[in-house]
């Protein structure tokens, strides 16, 4: 694939706007709170789109098309089952505590609710994870651009990292959030034509259904046993593992996304952020997954299109998206598509970097390295951390070259770090008897249980380093079960240790725990802006979609 001058013009235009937004926002920064938390002043439509855009990195974009080609419409569960219920729960039940507690980050909430050691554990593991995710995303993009356009891996990685660094350094979180929205719109508008063209060419949805095995076009029907569906998971693992533990762990406790909602201008806006975000999120599968499914059909139709192959043989699903673009997009729109890919990479990376610098500055530096310095000092630390975060991500990108299926690896990391976390938050927010020692014991044993499960079970040649107690039919199933085990362990240990330790006085937990906090009622909001009607509408749409693609 070769880009024409007009494609480079589009790429340049986009970079100019991204940097321009950063430049215009630089004057809004006068304190560490402006830089790291947007001064809590961002309008709700912007935080809602940023909420889902921060998660829509290049890895997701490439990975979702790849999974679409590999697993079919079941991939949509990563959205319908694996995101939306958790986003609704977050907006309705959890946001009042995050926003109302005045915590500046998720780890800081843990400090207020429990104690220092739980915060430290969460802050450090989160910091490592953001760098890791950002590095994987960078690696995926660099590899792809090298493969597709013949650009140098190092040049494309360094150039895009430099642009992300420039606008996050200038305008902080606000700049990252504003650009994420521009990036989201570009991804949606840039990839929608691909979905439309490829599905039409494949004969519409009916044409796809008639040409594919039925387990590729049904999301629920073949989930009874792991051997019947291409993902190799059964309904319990799917619903409990992905739909409950992994998704709630990610969408409700991951500071990367929670930070976007916390930047909203009011409590009511913060609660509506994830709720409004579910609406575009619900329809994203049509843009990001459909082209992958259509690609499999097109390859069967003797049109001259074949699924891309790996050097070692077997299909290379990660290249499905770009090969489709080269088959459907002429010079011009191809530039938009490529810019969209770069944009997705940047929004993913900026999300990670801005979450990393906040957690490092407030939860690590201010808590353990230097307390009580003037705010100017922390603003400088925030800026320096932004630079360091980008540099560490680049290092992580080179580490990631050792793994090939990036989506599975991400799930693995989330499984071990995020899964127990949701149990801690659930108990912390809704059970006032949960104690600091209980939370810490639960969290550490849950994480240990995750790694232990990974070490004792095997799937597709991964894991099972210590022993091979169980063989999973797929890595996906293994990831889901690791999450289930981690969550259950954390939950049980937290409850047992909490009951054995001294409870904290109620008075200290006002605003932090359900039952001791007045849930805000926003009487100025119009009826359709209130959480309940919004949620009902979303649930109805979600049910219809799932019945349609059952």
């Amino acid at each position: 694939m070769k880009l024409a001058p007009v494609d480079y013009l589009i790429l340049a235009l986009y970079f100019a706007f991204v940097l321009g937004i950063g430049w215009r926002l630089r004057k809004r920064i006068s304190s560490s709170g402006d830089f790291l938390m947007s001064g809590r002043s961002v309008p709700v439509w912007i935080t809602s789109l940023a909420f889902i855009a921060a998660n829509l990195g290049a890895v997701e974009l490439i990975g979702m098309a790849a999974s679409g080609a590999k697993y079919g419409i079941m991939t949509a569960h990563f959205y319908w089952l694996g995101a939306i219920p958790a986003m609704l729960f977050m907006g309705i039940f959890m946001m009042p505590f995050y926003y109302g507690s005045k915590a500046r980050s998720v780890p800081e909430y843990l400090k207020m609710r429990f104690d220092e050691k739980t915060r430290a554990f969460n802050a450090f593991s989160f910091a490592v994870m953001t760098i890791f995710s950002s590095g994987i995303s960078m690696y995926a993009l660099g590899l792809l651009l090298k493969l597709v356009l013949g650009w140098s891996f190092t040049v494309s990685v360094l150039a895009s990292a430099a642009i992300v660094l420039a606008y996050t350094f200038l305008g902080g979180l606000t700049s990252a959030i504003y650009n994420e929205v521009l990036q989201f719109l570009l991804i949606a508008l840039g990839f929608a034509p691909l979905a439309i063209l490829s599905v039409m060419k494949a004969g519409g949805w009916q044409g796809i259904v008639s040409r594919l095995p039925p387990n590729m076009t049904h999301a629920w029907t073949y989930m009874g046993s792991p051997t019947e569906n291409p993902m190799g998971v059964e309904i319990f693992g799917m619903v409990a593992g992905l739909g409950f533990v992994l998704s709630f762990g990610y969408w409700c406790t991951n500071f990367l996304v929670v930070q976007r909602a916390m930047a909203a201008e009011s409590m009511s806006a913060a609660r509506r952020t994830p709720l409004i975000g579910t609406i575009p999120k619900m329809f994203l599968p049509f843009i990001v997954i459909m082209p992958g499914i259509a690609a499999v059909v097109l390859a069967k139709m003797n049109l001259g299109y074949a699924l891309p192959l790996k050097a070692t043989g077997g299909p290379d699903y990660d290249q499905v998206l770009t090969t489709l673009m080269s088959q459907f997009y002429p010079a011009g729109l191809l530039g938009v598509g490529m810019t969209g890919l770069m944009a997705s990479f940047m929004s993913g990376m900026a999300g990670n970097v801005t979450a990393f610098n906040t957690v490092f500055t407030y939860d690590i530096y201010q808590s353990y390295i230097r307390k009580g310095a003037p705010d100017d000092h922390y603003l400088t630390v925030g800026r320096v951390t932004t630079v360091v975060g980008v540099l560490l991500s680049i290092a992580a990108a080179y580490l990631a070259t050792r793994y090939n299926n990036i989506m599975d690896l991400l799930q693995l990391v989330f499984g071990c770090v995020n899964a127990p976390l949701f149990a801690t938050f659930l108990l912390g927010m809704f059970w006032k008897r949960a104690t600091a020692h209980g939370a810490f014991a639960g969290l550490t044993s849950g994480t240990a249980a995750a790694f232990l499960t990974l070490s004792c079970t095997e799937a597709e040649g991964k894991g099972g380093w210590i022993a091979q107690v169980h063989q999973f039919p797929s890595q996906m199933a293994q990831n889901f079960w690791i999450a289930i085990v981690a969550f259950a362990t954390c939950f049980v240990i937290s409850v047992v240790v909490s009951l054995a330790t001294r409870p904290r006085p109620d008075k200290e937990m006002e605003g932090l725990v359900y039952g001791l906090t007045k849930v805000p009622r926003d009487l100025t909001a119009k009826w359709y802006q209130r959480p309940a009607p919004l949620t009902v509408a979303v649930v109805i749409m979600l049910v219809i979609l799932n019945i349609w693609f059952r």
Partner: protein
Amino acid sequence: MDLRVPSGWFFSLLGLILLGMGVFAPETHAALTTENVNLYAGACMLVFGLFLLLLAWRARSHE
């Protein structure tokens, strides 16, 4: 800063570039399609961009 302004300008300009391609090079198309893809996509983006600018302009005149 109202984000609708820079986004509106961005998509309007992008739409104009694609429309230009669609009008002046209508024969440009990729292997699997014969449609003038640039023309349609460009028109949609221009409309979207102008819509954002309109929203921003209305919000400003209301203040």
